[in-house]
């Protein structure tokens, strides 16, 4: 286990460095000169000397590796400059918007757990019966539905038709109820399908037959024995969805007029605010890498016998 975690941490660090290099290069090669953009903000028609001055001031005349180190250390010290869209320090913006997005995603995760676990257990229990068939149909639809459209449908029905919610976000958790649900639906649908087939695959294994022979009830076998063994693939996909939830948040935030990291990123892209864009993507990607790492560790803890199997081969 220790050796395994050590190995994972090394590959985790390599990926993290790769992620930061890639997002830095993406922006550095964009062909857009941040100095020129900033100069245009200050004066309507900057002279080449003025642009050059800003370039030297921002350290943009330095070679790429030096700029990469500066940018990376800026991320830790919090000196990344000001955003072109909000005119606030980028680090401060990130804190604020990330908090909003985290609450949105956190609530979506609650929805996902509440929807996925009981429904897929029921599907596996009542296999090929009406409930299973209906769920199958609904989950196929749920995967195809674009989240932003679902968001609008929810708004139309609950906010305009029934008037249970306001169209503009209300403060507190109530405002996140509809958006987090819209965000959770596609992920829940794919997770229900994965969990159902994972549970069914376990049903045919020997330990289930043994438990049946011991006279345990089907429900008890399902919850006490099969669930734990069926979880690893679900956990892996669940944590993978984490990144998609933050990214998909951009669209949902736009539908429900929530100010989160997604809309901040899109605004920064449109305003060609290169530093803000690269910082946002590296933060989001880092969250995703950490989530994947956690998924691996949780799986090892859930099913330690899988480690042995892998070491054998």
């Amino acid at each position, binding site marked *: 286990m220790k050796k395994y975690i050590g190995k994972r941490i090394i*590959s985790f660090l*390599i*990926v993290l460095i*790769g*992620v930061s290099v*890639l*997002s830095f290069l*993406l*922006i550095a*090669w*964009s*062909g*857009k000169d941040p100095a020129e953009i900033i100069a245009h903000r200050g004066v309507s028609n900057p002279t080449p000397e003025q642009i050059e001055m800003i370039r030297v001031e921002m350290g943009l005349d330095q070679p790429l590796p030096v700029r990469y180190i500066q940018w990376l250390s800026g991320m830790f010290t919090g000196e990344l400059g000001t955003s072109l869209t909000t005119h606030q320090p980028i680090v401060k913006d990130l804190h604020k918007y990330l908090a909003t997005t985290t609450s949105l995603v956190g609530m979506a995760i609650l929805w996902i757990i509440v929807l996925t676990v009981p429904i897929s257990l029921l599907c596996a229990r009542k296999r090929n019966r009406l409930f299973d068939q209906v769920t199958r149909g609904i989950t*196929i*639809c749920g*995967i*195809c*539905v*674009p*989240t*932003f*459209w679902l968001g*609008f*449908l929810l*708004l*139309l029905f609950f906010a*305009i038709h029934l008037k249970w919610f306001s*169209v503009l976000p209300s403060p507190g958790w109530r405002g996140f109820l509809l958006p987090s649900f819209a965000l959770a639906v596609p992920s829940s649908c794919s997770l229900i399908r994965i969990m159902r*087939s994972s549970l*069914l*695959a376990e*049903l*045919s294994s020997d330990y289930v037959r043994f438990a049946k022979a011991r006279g345990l009830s089907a429900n008890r076998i399902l919850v006490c024995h099969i669930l734990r063994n069926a979880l690893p693939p679900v956990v892996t996909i669940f944590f993978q969805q984490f*990144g*998609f939830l*933050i*990214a*998909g948040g*951009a*669209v949902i935030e*736009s539908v429900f007029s929530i100010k989160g990291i997604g809309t901040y*990123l*899109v605004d920064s*892209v*449109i305003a*060609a605010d290169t530093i803000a*864009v*690269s910082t*946002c*993507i590296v933060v*989001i*990607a*880092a969250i*995703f*890498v950490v989530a*994947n790492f956690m998924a691996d560790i949780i799986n090892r803890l859930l099913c330690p016998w899988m480690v042995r199997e892998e070491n054998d081969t």
Partner: protein
Amino acid sequence: MIHKLLKRPQAIIGLCLIAIVIVIAIAAPAFSPHDPELVNLSQKYAQPDAEYPLGTDQLGRCTLSRLLYGARYSIGISLPVLLILSVIGLIVGTFSACAGEKADHFITILCDVFIAFPSLIIAIAVIGVLGNGLQNIAVSVVIATWAWFVRIVRSYSVQEMGKDYILAARISGCNTGKLVFRHLIPNILPQFLVYVSTGVASSIIMVSSFAFLGLGLPSGTPEWGAMLNDARTALYSHPELLIYPGLCIFVTAAGFNLFGEALRDILTPEEDSL
């Protein structure tokens, strides 16, 4: 296999939906009653009638024509993109599985790095770098998702490489190139096709979410996501303008997903026999 496929209602519905959308995309000019970009301010938010079967939008443009032309953007971007992705996936994925440990490690780590960026984020950044345009949308979808295709092909290939027929081919003097193209790829192709089919659905949704966010396409383009974005202002007064384009995205994505689903059921019958 085709015979089996045609027995499944799911596959038939899926294929029909795909066929309908492709026909609409090709023959959009013949079906649509008006020019989709023709602005007619005197006909703002017209009710559906004989001239405008689904009414008009906030600039008096024919909604039906815009929806029909929208199929061109979704299909026209997604299908070529998936073709490119499949080629990249098959070549790099099989190479990674056959080329020895060092190359394999390098490609795996590279894929991990790209997969670490949620596709929407990387595509948003790439569009930010390249600017607007149909080609740039296609390029950004490719950059955002190629690693997934490589990874899936690699894992299929690694599984197949352990089988006896590969060993038999090797013993009978087959070189690596021939092994990959004659034996490996034909055997992983059906499973890969399932992945590609669901990939089309997700790339359609991805392209329309860019358009919805206002990235990649000039304003006024008759793309479904962009139409949804245009219709937001009419949330209270004309909700039907929000419903149509979303329904189109949904139906198109459902076609590809249903087809892929049916294909998967045929290829992995074990699940049913449990």
